[in-house]
């Protein structure tokens, strides 16, 4: 017989053992660790035995005090142990999912006829989904134009979307001087060239644009409500139902996988929905009789709804507009993963709607509108009164009405928006220098991503004349799929415009040390994984709380009260700190010719015509805690990942003697004393970390240290500069306080990301060096004389410019449509695996950026301005590139972005229009220069 003390010790040991057995056992049973999964299953079953044993051992201790509780405790433990054992056995018996519908798998004969019959329907689904923009998952967030499908049509023509702010906001800007009447008349004459004509009204000379501007400023209906970060649209019950099923199917619980998942979304739903009591019995019975193929089910549902022929595509399009977040993600997933497609989704949706007896084509109510003539006359009379100062003559009203008819109210919002953009672009252009290229060899050259956040760091570092900086796409022209040494999985560190073709990994410098480091990392991972599993599984959280709750309580207190200290401790203890010294395996993934070509392309694209002894290639990443949108703050050119791997790969290529020798033959002579080093800029803390320090030669160590010291000062200045805009900061905020945000798990504004982005400058740095561009401008270095055939400029205009445009429109539409094209406030987000978020517990998968990326409270922080592209390069070269690329023609001719260019720094600025180049009417103003 045990003594109470022995029993207590045994129970304690069993509690700890149960925790370890289940956590480790589960990891072994559900992952490919190399150890047979049966070992994990046995461990999980031993956990059940331990759980029951605890109940048995506690019985004699508890019974003398409370017999009923003692029996209840034993029963609970027996139930828990049995429940876990049954689950464990079920896990073992459940077959591994596999794909049946692989496009390369031979199709059974009996399905061939079905496939032929459904071909047209599949084409109709694809047609209906043509404008749907694929939505990347949250762990590799890619900024996209949510209206990319409409880029072949004029900006502003998409229904149901706010393309501009409320007119009241522009009027408020006019009142406070943010925009001027000059900007307004300029915008009017650009949008309606006929308005530049002169007129005489009541004996007074004026211009048609002045009249139209008066009309704009006197709009009686201008007091529209401002945009609000509304979170919840009224959800439709069918939408909620589908959202729940899609969540369960696409983000399966790691322990309890959805049965029949291998049949695809429609097949799994068809098999399981008859048991779903939330559906009426009649509907469940009908689902049992549905055809096995989603195409046929969709065809049946359409027939039941009376939809056929040419109306089919439109009806399908209407249904794809519901749950646009899920629909966008399904489109992405169909292409990249293949376990779901829109035909399956529509088959479920329309079957449900047909069986529930709901309508198919929600009609939009149309409001009666006053006649255009009456409205124009009323506006004309208002303007005429303002001009003549009393009752106007009918002829004057008629003359003004003719002018106003050329600029109807439907055009007013876009005119205001152009005015708003003109008021930003005019001083920006005026601030750009007429400068000669520098001649002296600089001490250090720093190449950073075109990301607007780099502009601040570059400007601060350039306070030292011996530092020269360049802007280049953050993947440094090296598109790779990257995996760390001995790590599982890989990330696609390249623009979303490219498919990964080169897999780069790491090779340790010291094999033995690396093995020790990896073993330590794996032990750490096993502990973290066991804790996570114990925390998430059905019954083990009790045991976890009993055994490790005290530790987590202390950790939570530390994280809350001293996030900076907690971050430092986590860094000290994390295995990443002991990561082995490695080299990236660039030479294994790229042929010598490819490496030379990549290097030459990079040099010519950024106009690197001379080489400092030390050249730093700095990628960027963002560190924050408890932030589902962390990857939205990482590098867009690296596919929503940090840019460190690409910087390391590029440095390795540039330091390769073989590459340098081949570059010399191509006229690019990198001196022998030049060394490239890779670094990473943390955009939350503005710290720069040298990567691969073991590869820095002794000859350059002192220079690197000197540069890092300079950078620390520049980082401090930049952090203080950024603090002036960060919510919750003030003029006395210290850099340390700003940096603490990286570790603060309650911080919803770790940084402001690319907030404010408004322009892109493609040209030599000397034209913008010294200008404070307020971290709002994408800066891509370019020197026309380094690019004789224009290939480099074409690459810049068809890749970095497109990525910048995607980002710009993502911010633009998230700001103007926070409820539909933005993700709403972070504070109520619930993660669906790594796919995305819901607001609260239901509704659609949210798209776009959270409100905390564009606004504060009910006010916008982001100024929604379409990207103003500014290029210094020969005009005919720019024109040729635009003519040859439909994507640029669409964006420019349809006014999604604007383009202003000059051939050299001494040439006048020209504005691109769909009809050719036009000179800027306004001479550069000096007031409001961005100096």
């Amino acid at each position, binding site marked *: 017989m045990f003594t109470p003390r022995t029993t207590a010790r045994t129970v304690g040991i069993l509690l700890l053992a149960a925790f370890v057995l289940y956590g480790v056992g589960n990891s072994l049973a559900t992952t490919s660790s190399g150890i047979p999964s049966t070992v994990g299953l046995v461990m999980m079953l031993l956990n059940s035995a331990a759980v029951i044993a605890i109940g048995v051992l506690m019985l004699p201790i508890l019974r003398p005090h409370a017999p009923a509780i003692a029996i209840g405790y034993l029963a609970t433990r027996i139930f828990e142990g049995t429940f876990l054992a049954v689950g464990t056995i079920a896990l073992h018996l459940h077959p591994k999912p596999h794909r049946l519908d692989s*496009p390369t798998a031979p*199709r059974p004969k009996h399905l*061939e006829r079905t*496939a*032929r019959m*459904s*071909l*047209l329907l*599949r*084409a*109709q689904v*694809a*047609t209906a*989904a*043509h404008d749907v923009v694929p939505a990347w998952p949250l762990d590799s967030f890619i900024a996209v134009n949510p209206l990319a499908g409409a880029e*072949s049509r004029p900006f502003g023509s998409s229904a149901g979307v706010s393309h501009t702010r409320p007119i009241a906001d522009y009027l408020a800007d006019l009142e406070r001087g943010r925009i001027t009447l000059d900007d307004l008349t300029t915008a009017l004459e650009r949008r309606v060239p006929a308005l530049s004509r002169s007129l005489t009204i009541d004996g007074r000379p004026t211009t048609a644009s002045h009249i139209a501007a008066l009309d704009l400023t006197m709009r009686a209906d201008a007091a529209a409500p401002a945009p609000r970060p509304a979170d919840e649209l009224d959800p439709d019950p069918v939408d909620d139902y589908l959202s729940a099923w899609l969540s369960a199917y696409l983000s399966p619980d790691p322990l309890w996988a959805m049965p029949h998942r291998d049949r695809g979304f429609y097949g799994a739903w068809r098999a399981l929905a008859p048991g779903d009591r939330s559906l009426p019995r009649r509907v469940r019975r009908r689902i049992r009789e549905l055809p096995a193929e989603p195409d046929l089910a969709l065809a049946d549902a359409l027939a039941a709804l009376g939809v056929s022929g040419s109306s089919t*595509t439109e009806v399908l399009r209407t249904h794809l507009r519901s749950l646009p977040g899920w629909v966008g993600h399904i489109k992405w997933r*169909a*292409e990249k993963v293949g376990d779901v*497609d829109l035909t399956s989704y529509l088959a479920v949706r329309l079957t449900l709607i047909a069986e529930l007896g709901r309508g198919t084509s929600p009609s939009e109510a149309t409001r009666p509108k006053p006649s255009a003539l009456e409205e124009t006359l009323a506006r004309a009379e208002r303007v005429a009164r303002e001009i003549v100062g009393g009752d106007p003559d009918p002829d004057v009203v008629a003359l003004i009405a003719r002018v106003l008819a050329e600029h109807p109210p439907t055009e007013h919002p876009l005119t205001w928006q152009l005015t708003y953009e003109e008021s930003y672009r005019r001083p920006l252009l005026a601030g750009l220098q007429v400068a000669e290229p520098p001649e002296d060899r600089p001490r250090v050259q720093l190449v950073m991503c075109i990301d607007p956040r780099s502009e601040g760091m570059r400007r601060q570092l350039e306070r030292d004349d011996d530092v020269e900086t360049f802007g280049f*796409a953050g993947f440094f*022209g090296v*598109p790779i799929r990257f995996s760390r040494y001995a790590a599982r999985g890989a990330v696609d560190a390249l*623009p*979303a*415009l*490219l*498919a990964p073709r080169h897999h780069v990994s790491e090779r340790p410098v010291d094999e033995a040390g690396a093995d020790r480091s990896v073993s330590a990392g794996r032990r750490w991972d096993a502990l973290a994984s066991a804790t996570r599993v114990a925390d998430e599984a059905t019954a083990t959280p009790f045991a976890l709380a009993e055994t490790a709750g005290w530790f987590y309580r202390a950790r939570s207190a530390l994280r809350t009260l001293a996030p900076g200290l907690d971050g430092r401790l986590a860094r000290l203890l994390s295995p990443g700190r002991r990561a082995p010294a490695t080299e990236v395996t660039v030479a294994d993934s790229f042929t010598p010719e490819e490496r030379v070509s990549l290097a030459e*392309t990079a040099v010519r694209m950024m106009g690197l015509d001379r080489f400092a002894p030390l050249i730093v290639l700095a990628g960027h990443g963002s560190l924050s805690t408890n932030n589902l949108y962390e990857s939205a703050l990482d590098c867009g050119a690296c596919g929503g990942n940090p840019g460190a791997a690409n910087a390391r790969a590029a440095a390795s290529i540039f330091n390769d003697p073989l590459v340098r020798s081949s570059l010399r033959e191509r006229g690019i002579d990198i001196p022998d004393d030049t060394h490239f080093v890779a670094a990473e800029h943390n955009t939350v803390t503005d710290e720069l970390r040298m990567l691969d320090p073991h590869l820095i030669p002794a000859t350059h160590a002192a220079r690197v240290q000197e540069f890092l010291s300079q950078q620390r000062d520049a980082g401090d200045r930049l952090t203080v500069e950024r603090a002036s805009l960060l919510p919750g900061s003030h003029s006395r905020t210290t850099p340390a306080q700003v940096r603490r945000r990286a570790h603060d798990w309650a911080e919803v504004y770790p940084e402001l990301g690319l907030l404010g982005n408004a322009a892109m400058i493609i040209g030599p740095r000397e034209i913008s060096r010294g200008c404070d561009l307020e971290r709002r401008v994408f800066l891509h270095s370019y020197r026309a004389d380094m690019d004789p055939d224009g*290939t480099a400029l*074409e*690459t810049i205009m*068809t*890749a*970095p410019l*497109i990525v910048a445009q995607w980002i710009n429109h993502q911010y633009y539409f998230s700001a103007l449509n926070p409820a539909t094209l933005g993700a709403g406030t972070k504070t109520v987000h619930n993660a669906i695996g790594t796919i995305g978020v819901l607001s609260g517990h239901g509704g659609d998968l949210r798209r776009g950026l959270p409100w905390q990326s564009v606004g504060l409270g009910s006010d916008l922080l982001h100024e929604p301005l379409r990207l103003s592209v500014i290029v210094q390069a020969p005009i005919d070269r720019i024109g040729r*590139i635009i*003519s*040859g*690329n*439909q*994507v640029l*023609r669409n964006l420019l001719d349809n006014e999604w972005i604007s383009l202003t260019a000059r051939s050299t720094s001494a040439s006048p600025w020209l504005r691109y229009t769909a009809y050719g180049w036009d000179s800027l009417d306004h001479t550069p103003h000096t007031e409001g220069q961005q100096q």
Partner: protein
Amino acid sequence: MKNLTRMTRLEVIVPARDAPAIRELISSAGATGYTSVSGVSGIGHHGPHSGALLFNEYDTLTMLITVLPEDRAEALIDAVRELLSMSSGVMFVADTYVSRPEYFQ
């Protein structure tokens, strides 16, 4: 054309972003394969297209070529025509002859 079997050849040129939908239709139509040429250049209804771009495969044109028996081609032609009704692109259909018809059945 002795010892050759007549089949139907489809050539479809579309923006690269629309190519996955065409590929899916080709597979669904029972074609046993296709050839894909990315970055094709030329001049068409929407103006010139410069061809392959160094860092952008998304905004170029792709040409997809497939060959299949006549009895399966008609459904695919109808489906591709439906798809092209909403997007830019062209489809060319021609008779062709193959030496090993079993490859295309």
